[in-house]
């Protein structure tokens, strides 16, 4: 589904990604771990198309297409979803309207009929349950006045509604207490499926107790220096990242 080859990218003026390789197939969950500043969030943003990042070398092939050549909205319509580390508060814009507009933009792109208000509302009711999101929040302004946990649940709720093929979760666990983490992780797990791939970016192993990955990759200095199975996360938890930072890039991209 996704093939990242020798990806080099800058955030502003600084080189962050320095030759990253990663292959993700449908049905797989890949965890990207690494110390602060290793390029985890840059990878997530580059894949989603956030302005301010420049790809200087390499390519990203998504479903056979050049992902980097697509505008952010076209990536979303093609099934790429980024759950933000810091979801943006948008005063005045109704959550439910925004999500309906997004859903219909995606459906239109896929050649599906647009949902009317009634159909969409029942979809919202169904999906809000997945992350135990209060329906009142759905009617409010996008993320405005939401607690940290509510914002993250709103991200997963949006993901549930939009049903992406490739979901990228950027530090979805940051700032969550254990109960909120469990709810969010459970929501994510319910969205796992043979057609859907996930990239879970996290600094902590804790999240991976709840979202058990198929593969774990360690990102150091903009490169994947080690890849392994889920048990590697535990090893990292025990030993930290320091020992890997000294190793040259090895066994990258699984």
């Amino acid at each position, binding site marked *: 589904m996704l093939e990242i080859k020798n990806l080099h990218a800058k955030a502003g003026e600084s080189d962050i990604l320095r030759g990253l390789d990663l292959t993700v197939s449908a049905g797989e969950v890949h965890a990207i771990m690494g110390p602060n500043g290793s390029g985890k969030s840059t990878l997530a943003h580059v894949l989603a198309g956030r302005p301010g990042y420049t790809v200087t070398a390499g390519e990203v092939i998504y479903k056979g297409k050049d992902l980097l050549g697509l*505008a952010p909205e076209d990536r979303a319509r093609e099934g790429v979803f980024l759950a933000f580390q810091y979801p943006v508060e*948008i005063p005045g*814009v109704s959550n439910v309207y925004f999500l309906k507009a997004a859903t219909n933009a995606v459906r239109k792109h896929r050649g599906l009929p647009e949902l009317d208000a009634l159909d969409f509302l029942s979809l919202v009711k169904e999906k809000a349950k997945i992350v135990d999101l209060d329906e009142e929040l759905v009617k409010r302004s996008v993320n405005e006045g939401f607690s940290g946990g509510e914002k993250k649940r709103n991200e997963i709720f949006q993901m549930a509604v939009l049903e992406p093929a490739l979901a990228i979760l950027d530090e979805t666990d940051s700032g969550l207490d254990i109960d909120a983490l469990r709810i969010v992780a459970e929501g994510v797990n319910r969205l796992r499926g043979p057609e859907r791939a996930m990239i879970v970016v996290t600094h902590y192993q804790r999240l991976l107790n709840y979202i058990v990955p198929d593969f774990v990759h360690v990102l150091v200095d903009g490169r994947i220096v080690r890849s392994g199975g889920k048990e590697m996360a535990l090893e990292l938890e025990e030993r930290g990242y320091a020992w890997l930072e000294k190793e040259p890039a090895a066994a990258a991209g699984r």
Partner: protein
Amino acid sequence: MTAIAEERDAYRASFERFAAAHAGSDPAWLRERRTAAMARFVEKGLPTARDEAWRHTPVAPLARPRFDPADPAARPPADALDRLLREGFRGSRLVFVNGRFSADLSSPGRAEAGIEVASLRELLRAQPDRVEPWLGRVCAGQVSVFADLNAAFAEDGAVVIVAPGQVVREPVLVAHLSAGNGNPSVSYPRSLVVARPGSECRVVETFTSPNGSSSLVNAVTEVVVEEGARVDHYKLQQEGEDQLHVAALAARLARDARLFDHSLALGAALSRNDIDVRFDGEGGECALHGLFVLDGRRVADTHSRIDHARPHCSSREHYRGIVDGQARGIFNGLVVVRPGAQKTDAFQMNQNLLLSRQALVHSTPQLQILADDVKCKHGSTTGQLDPAALFYLRSRGLSEPAARSLLTWAFASDIVRKMDVEPLRRIVERHLQAHLPGVSSLAEAVS
């Protein structure tokens, strides 16, 4: 300077002809007030770019030596009124064409009990002294020379008087339609709203004209809110792209009186609003809300002055501007707290959104505090659409234009939602819908 003297002489000569023609019909008190207003104008003259209050406003188009009186027999476009009515105004309405009452288009009779809704011209004829206690006494030289010109020349406008204790639910529509023939002409609508003690009413004034009628509307609205009364005043300015619009709103609030003013500036080449509110009694409350939406080379200017002349009053002012193209917005808000006006609570905020590199806003909130036990705050921000919010929306599949439209509308809606007159909200939505591609329903889009 010669040009200015010339304009002054032209206005003076024009006034002499006007006064002679009205000598037989106007009551003496009105003749006196007209003459006094003209004297103020002659003394002050038209503003120039050197006047502080006009520093950022291109005053030249307003200072043309001659505007002919607008033709009161002109016919506005056939659908001009329907475009307002079909949004659902159901109360009584007064319609003015080029400043002159149109009996055919109006239906003042549908007013509820306890409220008088009339044309000023007709009222002066039928009961010459009915408006004497108020007309020209609220807006009496303190606002601008254009208001003085209006006081000198105004012949017609809306009069709304609500009897003590009456609560009128249905908004009164005062529709000012302009119909020009392309020649520079001027009209002077003058309206008066009086809410007697304990009464409540809502008045919606609209100013609309087709593109291509390049005339000057010089309007004045006086609002008298007596003890414990409440007035909600709404103004929609949606004039054609060549139109010049200068208006003053002057209000006096008695003890425990409340005024809620909402102003929408969506059209005209140049529009200037002067707002002057004075608390004459304790416990008064006022809110001034405004939105200007400008594109092309339009200019919209709001100068407001809220005079806390008495203690224990509160004022809220919130203006937002959306400026695109090479347009220019000007906001100048002054809050004066006089000596002894203790426990004043004043809040003032101006926020502007610039949609292009050439768009410009001059924002000057000012506090002048001469009492020591008060709570006053003000602020001003001017910026562009938040790139983080834009990306967030696009990352979910919204196109860039749709994302920009949605954020722009959300910015505007903060002011629009405060307007408690649904037909007016629909007019704004319709106006913005035309300028904001990619949002299927503005009404649904905001929370």
